[in-house]
């Protein structure tokens, strides 16, 4: 074929394409889809043609009804959280009895008997071991309860209905209804919540869900909230109401978290994320009886164990760092007290103190060890009797005793409130940060997700502190 005829063919084709009009491509694509579905419907037969008109449809009418939809949803979520928080207390106590009160002294004794140098003993046993043990004791039981329950609901097919019910609210803030599920998952563990955002197939809404997941109080933070609320909030009302007061304070913080989640979702979708592609669809699969044992097994292995393992990997070095900063001296001061002093004035502006800020820096790997670290550092820097020694984290059996230590460390009601706020609004733990990076593959969004909440935390605690002091 010579060049001339090639050129004339190309000219002809571009001429024809010009004449064919703009609707052609859309029509072609739709035609292909329509043909494909015709072929499929001819050759695929389904046994259960009207499965939507049996028990499924009856359940659906109830769980998505105007009257019952929301109460059922909140009831189920409430029961799961209650089972998790209350139910986890017992195994947690047993684990901490075993790991912290039995094995830890035993290891210390062993180290003494083989005359291990004090620094190696401290570094390994008081630092690395203690942090890992703490994370296991606090984290394992709630996760082992929460995830299987949640996965059972997922397997049953109820969760998509929750997304369906709540989508309207999430749409208002530019998010996807399924974010309700990833947020609930975040109540168990933010890292797991971030992984769960895979169910959202629209890029913009998925990023929103990832970045705002941290506003769900996770398992590592519930105990902190409950403890501080019990010690400080419960104490300002008559003792007969103290339980109610501290409970409302904790729920208040969780609800505030939801508010921040909606607000941040809205702000993100209107600003930095507005260019990301956004689509919506939500399939409501038929219900099916959950495969109980399989679900228990996979949720334990896939979610609980993986998250726990990652947390231990991050927590162990954190324990080492905590021990080191309390035991390495520059001049007359340990690194810890030196850092605390330099953070103190900034902490004061936020209505917190240097100890809390330092604890949040070293506890980036795991929120579980914030309170033990704060107690240890408070005892260490204020020379209060009662600690376990430099760099050895501890908690006391009675909340009152812990309250005494904290008050001796200069804590007021403002410190407590701001700590609760800061515990809600601070950077995600390193496990979550790492998971966000793995899910988004983007340094930019990982940075946004890590920095944004901590800036909000600074602003909110700052404002609360100033207003508090004005009155």
């Amino acid at each position: 074929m010579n060049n001339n005829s090639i050129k004339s063919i190309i000219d002809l084709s571009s001429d024809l394409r010009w004449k064919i009009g703009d609707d052609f491509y859309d029509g072609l694509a739709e035609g292909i889809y329509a043909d494909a579905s015709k072929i499929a419907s001819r050759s695929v037969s389904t046994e259960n043609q009207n499965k939507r008109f049996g028990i499924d449809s009856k359940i659906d009418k109830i769980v998505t009804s105007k009257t019952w939809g929301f109460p059922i949803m909140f009831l189920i979520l409430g029961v799961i959280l209650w089972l998790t928080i209350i139910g986890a207390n017992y195994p947690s106590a047993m684990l901490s009895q075993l790991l912290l009160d039995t094995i830890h002294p035993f290891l210390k004794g062993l180290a003494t008997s083989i005359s291990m140098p004090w620094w190696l003993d401290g570094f390994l046993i008081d630092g690395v071991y203690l942090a890992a043990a703490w994370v296991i004791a606090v984290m394992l039981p709630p996760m082992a309860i929460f995830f299987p329950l949640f996965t059972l609901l997922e397997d049953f097919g109820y969760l998509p209905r929750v997304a369906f019910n709540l989508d309207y609210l999430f749409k208002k803030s530019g998010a996807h209804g399924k974010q309700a599920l990833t947020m609930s998952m975040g109540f168990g563990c933010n890292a797991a919540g971030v992984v769960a955002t895979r169910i959202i197939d629209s890029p913009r809404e998925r990023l929103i869900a990832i970045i705002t997941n941290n506003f769900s109080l996770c398992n590592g933070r519930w105990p902190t909230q409950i403890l501080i609320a019990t010690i400080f909030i419960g104490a300002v009302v008559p003792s007969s109401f103290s339980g109610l007061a501290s409970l409302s304070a904790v729920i208040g913080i969780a609800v505030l978290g939801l508010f921040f989640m909606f607000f941040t979702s809205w702000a993100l979708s209107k600003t930095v994320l507005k260019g990301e592609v956004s689509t919506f669809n939500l399939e409501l699969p038929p219900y099916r009886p959950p495969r109980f044992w399989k679900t228990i097994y996979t949720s334990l292995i896939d979610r609980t164990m993986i998250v726990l393992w990652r947390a231990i990997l991050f927590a162990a070095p954190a324990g080492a760092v905590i021990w080191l900063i309390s035991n390495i001296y520059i001049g007359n001061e340990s690194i810890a007290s030196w850092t605390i002093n330099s953070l103190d004035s900034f902490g004061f502006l936020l209505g917190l103190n240097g100890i809390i800020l330092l604890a949040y820096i070293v506890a980036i790997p795991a929120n579980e060890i914030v309170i033990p670290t704060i107690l240890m550092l408070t005892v260490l820097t204020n020379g209060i009797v009662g600690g376990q020694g430099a760099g050895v984290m501890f908690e006391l059996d009675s909340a009152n005793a812990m309250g005494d230590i904290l008050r001796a460390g200069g804590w007021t009601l403002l410190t407590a409130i701001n700590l609760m706020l800061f515990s809600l609004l601070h950077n995600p733990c390193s496990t979550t940060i790492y998971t966000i990076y793995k899910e988004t593959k983007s340094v930019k969004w990982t940075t946004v997700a890590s920095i944004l909440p901590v800036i909000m935390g600074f602003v909110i605690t700052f404002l609360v502190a100033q207003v508090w002091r004005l009155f």
Partner: protein
Amino acid sequence: MNTYNPAYALLLFFAISLLGYLLFRPQKGWFWVIKNNLKSNEKIVIEDILKQLYHTENSGKEINVNSLTRALKFNDRIIVEVIGKMTNNELVQFDGDVLKLTNSGRDYALRIVRVHRLWEKYLAEKTGYDKMDWHEMAETKEHELSYEETNLLATQLGNPKYDPHGDPIPTTLGEIADVKGEFLSALAVNSVGKIVHIEDEPDVIYKQILAENIHIGSQIRVVKNNKQRVVFYAEGEEFKLAPIVAANITVRILEKDEIIEENRVRLSSLKEGEVAHILGISKESRGESRRRLLDLGFVKGTKISIDLKSPMRNPIAYLVKGTSIALRKDQASKILIKKD
């Protein structure tokens, strides 16, 4: 710490926040204004003048230097200076005091228009930006893309013929499809046509059109047209517009054999218990959203009915091919059905 006073601290904080807001608020923030001013060099002024002339000449009007300086946002002195240079380079010429494009000026203007409309098409198909943002973003981008980049973009988009508003996109050779049609405000009662163009300027009117949920490509029938109101039916809904708004919508009158039966309605109007067949997806559903709908089985000829309504009545789950799929109201309004 001795000078610390919570009131001062608060004041300082609010002062810094205010400063940050003034500097970085979208579009009007000082930072952006300064950045834009630094960027607005001669090239941009030349290209904007060419574009302005092109659009005026296309609508059959004439423009002189005075009205040009009023239409453009630049400093008058700069505009006069640049026009002088453009006359020397034979991009524009004077006919009396009327300013006109030369042939090379027209070619240049078409290139800019091409980039602008291609970019709007790109934003519509490949990104999630809101319709309201497309024009503004294309206004910046049209000065940035090179000839090669533009052609690459066109190839990636499948050499589209029209931009999302229905404006024709010039080819590399400067060919341009013509939009045949009349303004909606000028149509006689009972005329049937198809919306082929929705003008995106000025913002105020475009916002009203968007709020009405009027879709490009839909077939309309005018039922009333007087000085106060233009009333028409499209896709089973009734729309009422002020004539000034209707003037921004272009309609192509349909021949007898082109008119499709009128019981073509939006899925959003389906009621519980009714059964319908899908006729197609509106042109307003674009890019990823459109493909997703097709993937899910919202294709021509499929039977569809309502399965469930959520407590807030939005989204609604539709039964398609034995599967229950929830769609939001704005999606459902872009799927066309025929009730059985």
